[in-house]
Every structure is written in structure tokens, then in C-alpha cells.
């Protein structure tokens, strides 16, 4: 298992903030909207640098999505920012009709996704957002794994014409991807080549999967690890190529099992290449208050659970 150098420990939302600030300098069409969470979303830099292109909408997320759709009509590239729960469930029909169906170039940027937002509890911990967003035709769904990748993804989606859901989080996590990597939407990233099993991970679970890979290597299990930062469109070719080799799959994500990355991969494999799959995800439950680490453990989302899932799936080969 390859070693990944941790450059620092940073929150992915700061990667978004840095990417947005850079876009502000390079792309005059980029505009930003925020619903009373400028600091939490790290949009303050953009706000300060481009006050004329930043719109504080107040605590009014439905209005924000409509405004963004309208701005897109005039060739602006709006980035909306609020927590993932209020970016999706709160405004689903506004997104469905005014953004996805109308195919507007709106970038829905969502922080504090999943249980790792911690102590605020289940009211804020959305675990259904990937599912909600991937079901919408025209929508691209991206869940980067660390600071550098979130920054790169933020910059990349400005050049992609069409609605995008960009999901990131609150806690500081290991930043290990290269700052110079270009982000290619829809391209699965091979992190480690292996032969016994493929782990497909997204978001915060990518680092957990790396840790699991090291533990498994010591047990003599040779893991192929692929970072699926883009859940839709799914890189079917890369997934099938890997599974043809390993014939056993574990998926890992900070999301409900229903409707997440694992669900997309299972659909693909059921159609193209039936294979044993174990899913590391939240099993039909809401979250609760606690520290991010406690909650990752409580809901079976940490490296230990990935190791156990690999061991289970190997027996089913």
C-alpha cells in the first residue's frame, strides 16, 4: 500500500473558500451568494475581494436558489453557499425546477455534510444529499476528499457548463492530494493498485480507506483503492476495469447506504458485472450529537469498519 504524505490537516470547506477566492480573480463571471453563513462556508475572502459580486441573501435558501438561476440566465456563474442540509433538502423543488430541469449553470456548494459536522446533531447532519442530487437529471455530483481536492474541484466546476452539486465538510482532515493536481470532473482516481479487492471511497472516507489499506496490507490483503470524487457522472469504465481484476468490492462514504455512492456502484455492477459488494455507509438512520470521531465510529464509518467490510467481502469471492 502506497504511503501518502500528509501536508497538513485542514477542513475541506477552506479549500472551497480558497478556490472561490481564486476564481474571483480569474473569472469575472463568477458570482457568489450566501445565506447567513459566510464565515462557516469560508466565503469571506471572496466577499471582501469582490463585494459587488457577492450577495448576502439572509436566512432564505429557497430565494437564494431562485436568484442563482436568474443570475445564470444573464451568463453569470453563481456559486451558492450554505450547509448541505439547507442546500438540498430545504430547497429541493427550487433546485429541481429552476436549476436542474431548466438546466442552469448554478454551482450549489454545500458544507457541513454528513455526521462529521458533529455536535449540532441530526437536524443539521444531512446524509441524504448525494441521493437527492444524483437523482436529478442534468445534475453533476462531486464530493472531494481533502482541502487541495476541494479547492481544485471548486475551480474546475466554473468551467463546466451545467448544474453542479459540490459537497464538502466541516472538520479538519488530512490534506494529502497534490496541490498541483488538476481536477477532472467524472474521472475516478487510482490511489493504489491492488489485486484482492477494490475499495471505492468518496469524501472524508477516502482517508479512512487509506488507513484501512495499510492495516489490510499488514494482514496480507492487497487493496486497490480508487477515489470516486465524482458520483455523477460515474466513471463506469474505471470501476469496471478494476472490478474485472479484483472481483470484490467495498464502497465507503459518509452518507446513507440508500442513494449514495455504493448504491450507484451496485447498480452498475448488477447490470454489467455482478460482484460481491459490502457497503460502508450509514444504515438507514439519522445522526446525533457527538464529536466527529465519535460519530464516525458510532455509525460504522471509520477505517476499522472498512477493514471489516473487506474481510467480509473476501469471504464472498
Amino acid at each position, binding site marked *: 500500500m502506497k504511503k501518502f504524505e500528509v501536508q497538513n490537516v485542514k477542513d475541506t470547506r477552506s479549500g472551497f473558500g480558497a478556490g472561490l477566492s481564486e476564481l474571483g480573480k480569474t473569472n469575472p463571471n463568477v458570482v457568489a451568494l450566501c445565506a447567513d453563513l459566510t464565515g462557516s462556508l469560508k466565503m469571506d475572502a471572496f466577499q471582501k475581494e469582490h463585494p459587488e459580486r457577492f450577495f448576502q441573501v439572509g436566512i432564505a435558501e429557497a430565494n437564494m436558489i431562485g436568484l442563482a438561476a436568474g443570475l445564470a440566465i444573464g451568463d453569470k456563474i453563481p456559486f451558492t453557499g450554505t450547509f448541505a442540509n439547507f442546500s438540498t433538502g430545504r430547497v429541493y423543488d427550487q433546485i429541481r425546477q429552476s436549476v436542474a430541469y431548466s438546466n442552469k449553470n448554478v454551482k450549489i456548494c454545500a458544507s457541513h455534510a454528513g455526521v462529521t459536522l458533529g455536535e449540532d446533531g441530526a437536524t*443539521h447532519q444531512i446524509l441524504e444529499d448525494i441521493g437527492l442530487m444524483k437523482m436529478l437529471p442534468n445534475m453533476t455530483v462531486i464530493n472531494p476528499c481533502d482541502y487541495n481536492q476541494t479547492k481544485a474541484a471548486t475551480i474546475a466546476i466554473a468551467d463546466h457548463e451545467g448544474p453542479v452539486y459540490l459537497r464538502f465538510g466541516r472538520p479538519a482532515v488530512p490534506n494529502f492530494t497534490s496541490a498541483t493536481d488538476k481536477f477532472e470532473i467524472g474521472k475516478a482516481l487510482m490511489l493504489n493498485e491492488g489485486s484482492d479487492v477494490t475499495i471505492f471511497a468518496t469524501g472524508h472516507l477516502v482517508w479512512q480507506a487509506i488507513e484501512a489499506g495499510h492495516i489490510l496490507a499488514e494482514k496480507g490483503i492487497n487493496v486497490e483503492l480508487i477515489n470516486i470524487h465524482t458520483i455523477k457522472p460515474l466513471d463506469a469504465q474505471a470501476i469496471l476495469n478494476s472490478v474485472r481484476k479484483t472481483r470484490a468490492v467495498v464502497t465507503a462514504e459518509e452518507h446513507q447506504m440508500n442513494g449514495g455512492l455504493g448504491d450507484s456502484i451496485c447498480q452498475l455492477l448488477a447490470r454489467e458485472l455482478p460482484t460481491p459488494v459490502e457497503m460502508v455507509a450509514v444504515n438507514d438512520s439519522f445522526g446525533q450529537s457527538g464529536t466527529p470521531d*465519535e460519530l464516525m465510529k458510532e455509525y460504522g464509518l471509520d477505517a476499522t469498519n472498512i477493514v471489516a467490510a473487506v474481510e467480509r467481502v473476501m469471504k464472498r469471492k
Partner: protein
Amino acid sequence: MTDIRTLEQTATQVRRDILRMVHGAKSGHPGGSLGCADFLTALYFKVLNHNPKFNMNGKNEDVFFLSNGHISPLFYSVLARSGYFPVEELKTFRKLHSRLQGHPATAEHLPGVRIASGSLGQGVSVAAGAALSKKLNDDKNLVYVLMGDGELQEGQNWEAFMFAAHHKVDNLIVTVDYNGQQIDGSTMEVLGLGADIEAKLKAFGWEILHMDGHNMQNIIDTMAKAKTMTGNGKPIFIIMKTEMGQPIDFMVGSHKWHGIAPSDSDLEKALAQLPSTLADY
């Protein structure tokens, strides 16, 4: 009869609870909690006809909903101090497996909570529904709501305001915590509600009252007045002037204390300004 002095002392203890809970959890929302402490203490210790042997359906008692769910430490302290659950349990606030979730929730069956809140802008709708159910049940008790002023920016509130007036939901008393602050700054900077919130609500068909949220006598009198105005075909809206973080000198009036925990030394300084009256949990 609970006298004003006793209510004030209870509110002081509630404020100590709030600060100690948020400090203990290293997260939470002290600003709005402290600012609404006088009001919610008055409500539970004086105004409401309520039963701490909690019944979810709230039949034959007044029912309260906290729409601005982030001020949960206040809600929990008042519920505990009025007998809904052991005061000791306050120390579990925001901890794993606690019934005292970061925002009020029903999943853990904490007595006193009838609906989850935290995602803003939903409480008035729920309360209007509960008020309708009281009418259908021929239950003469009232439904109360507390909400934030920033929260008023959510459009759903205005749908609920329109509904409640149109359907003459006149057993409903909504109080807004008019502290002029929210997360990103003052409400005027973020998204001005307009100078004249009274005129807006009046135009929506509501009765309006003003209240000083830091004057216990005025709270009691205003709530009594509100009660006499129910049953006359209109819902009632109370504009309650408060200060975020009241009365801690380094917190008062600043949006910075909306949602951060006090450090050890902050806590010490703050508690020194609030003499313990009912004993800490």
C-alpha cells in the same frame, strides 16, 4: 403566586446552566439563549398551564414550540428546572448518546420536546397546526412559539403568518426574539427586515404587542395581556426587545456570541456576573 424576584433568580440560574452547558460541550449557542432566558423562565414558571409529566399530545394544557432551535441550552435548562427531567442530565448536552441533542429532537424522547427544530423557519407552521388541532379537540388552551428575528427571513414564516390570519388561528401567540443580531452580523446589515416589523405583521392580519425581554414585570404583564387578546379572530405577535448575550458584559449585543462556546476564563468571568441561586447541576 410566583413573585418577580423568584422568577429573576430562576432566570439567573438558567443563565448559569446555559453557560456551563455550552462550555462543557465546547459548542452551542450562548448568545440567543442568554437573551431569551427571562422570557422562557417566565413562560414555564408563570405563564404556561403545563404538565411536567409530559404528554406528547399536549391535550388540555398550553403547548410551547421553540422555532429557533439553536437556543436549545435555554430550552433544556428551563425544562429541567421545571421538572421535566433531572437537572443532572444537563451535563450531557451535545454529548454522544445524550437525550439533549445539539438542537431539540424527539428521537431520544426527551420530555418537553414535541418537534425537532434547528433548521430555521418551521416552528410557526407547526404551531399553527397544533393550534388547529386544539380547536378541533375543543381544547381551550393556547399554543406559544418563540422564534428568532433573523429567522424571520425564511419565507415559510410568512406563509404561516398568512395562513394563521386567514384561518383565524386566534389561540396562537408568537414571540420574536428581536435582538437585531444573527450569524453574519446585525439583521439590518445581513438582510434588513425593514424598520417597521410591526407594520408588516399588522398587514398580515396579526395583533401586535411589544415587550421588554429583560424586564420580568413587563414580560408577565405583556403575556397576560396577550392571553386576554386570544379568541378574538386574530393570532398574536409579540415583538420582544432583547440583547444577545444579556447580561454578560463581554457578550451583550454582539453577534460574535451567536454560536461559540466560552473558554475556561470566559466562563469564569461570566459566572462571576451571575450568582448561583438554585445550585448548579
